[in-house]
């Protein structure tokens, strides 16, 4: 084996290892990160003008015949004279899930302080949504 090749083996092996390291980091390495996701959901809020639950038209009390006699039919006062619909309200719900974050994305996020390590040892993304912080915290 010539001197040149013998001398080149070590740096070539290191270069090969470096390329393998980059490839592994870019293609396979990922870490679990707690991610908070915000989603807008529509919920029904009880109307303050609605009948109390015990007096609602579909409540057991309203279905009970007068004096407990079934032959008398439904109560004479029948269903409630008016029905107040519930109020629809859009709220933002925050859910926390664990996502596998690939290393290139992690590099991008740490450059702006987008990922921190909690005392529990878990990694957590510091922002929700797609738009990360614009500046490094340091």
């Amino acid at each position, binding site marked *: 084996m010539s001197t040149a090749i013998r001398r080149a083996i070590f740096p070539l092996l290191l270069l090969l290892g470096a390329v393998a390291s980059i490839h592994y980091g870019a293609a396979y390495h990922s870490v679990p990160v707690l991610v908070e996701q915000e989603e807008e959901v529509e919920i029904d809020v009880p109307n303050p003008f609605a009948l109390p639950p015990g007096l609602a038209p579909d409540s057991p009390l309203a279905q009970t015949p007068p004096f407990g006699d079934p032959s008398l039919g439904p109560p004479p006062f029948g269903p409630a004279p008016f029905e107040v619909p519930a109020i629809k309200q859009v709220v933002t719900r925050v859910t926390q899930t664990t996502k596998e974050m690939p290393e290139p994305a992690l590099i991008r996020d*740490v450059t702006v302080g987008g990922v921190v390590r909690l005392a529990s040892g878990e990694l957590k993304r510091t922002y929700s949504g797609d738009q990360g912080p614009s500046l490094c915290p340091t």
Partner: protein
Amino acid sequence: MASMAKQKSFFHRAKLARWRLWVQLGFLLAWLDPLLMRMQSVCGPVFHCYSCPLATFACPIGVLAQFSALHVIPWIALGTLLAVGAAVGSFVCGWACPFGFLQDLLARAALPKFSLPAWTGVFRYLVLIALVLAVPYWYGEAHELFFCRLCPAGTLEGAIPNTAQLVLSRQVGVLPGATEAESAAPDPTGRDAAPEEGAGQEIPWPSRTRIAILAAVLAAALVTWRPWCTLLCPLGAIYAVCNRFSMVFMRFHPDRCRDCKVCRSLCRGGERPERRVDGLRCVRCMECQQCQAVSVATVFSPGEATGSRPEIQ
């Protein structure tokens, strides 16, 4: 074989150092994100803060420190450093690093110069082990001694421009990073933005420690050659180790040496090329190549890897 000899003679004849300024300028343009690609997922090989508004790549030392704080192995950053180190060693420091380029420009000031003793290069390993790896690992990135909180390159390229941007945006009434139209748009959460909300945003001024470190490094660069690189740079510390086995290296030819000590006088890093041509403080600026006993070689070049004249005092 003939081509190798030709390559050797080219390296020896061409005084590559005279092109260094232009090469540094070219690399500076590459690091300053001329195409606005903002490839922050990719680790760059040089010391250039990723907080800089004009940074193309992520700083490898910043990534090492941040990943140390997260207790995650940075395979990409390690691979990048190892690949560049194994290929060219600290040529990156001398020819491509923007912070080194700045210090080179400052060193042109006509002031009396003094050189630091070679042993001071050991401090770089302390910085690497303590501030880049240990402090983030044990205390997290919020600690005051976290490397990025002290880094002069980060102060110059990231903290000062970003603070200036915030101050200017406050003066013109536009939130940072937003166009005027975006600032005028209603808040998507439905809140009525208070008129003083943008103006009242706290501006994160760089700490006095950071400013003091930057001022000290820049002032020192006027009177000594590359004080940051030779004394404290953790990236230079990594590449300096790689100098010992990189594919491209500096070669000393004992048979051509005439004991003139020209190579020693040319080395601004305080190295003694006739004893060890790839010393720990060598950034491969190739100034010593002006001496006929020193040349650039590759592992495929014929001849011994290096040589020395230990008898020269």
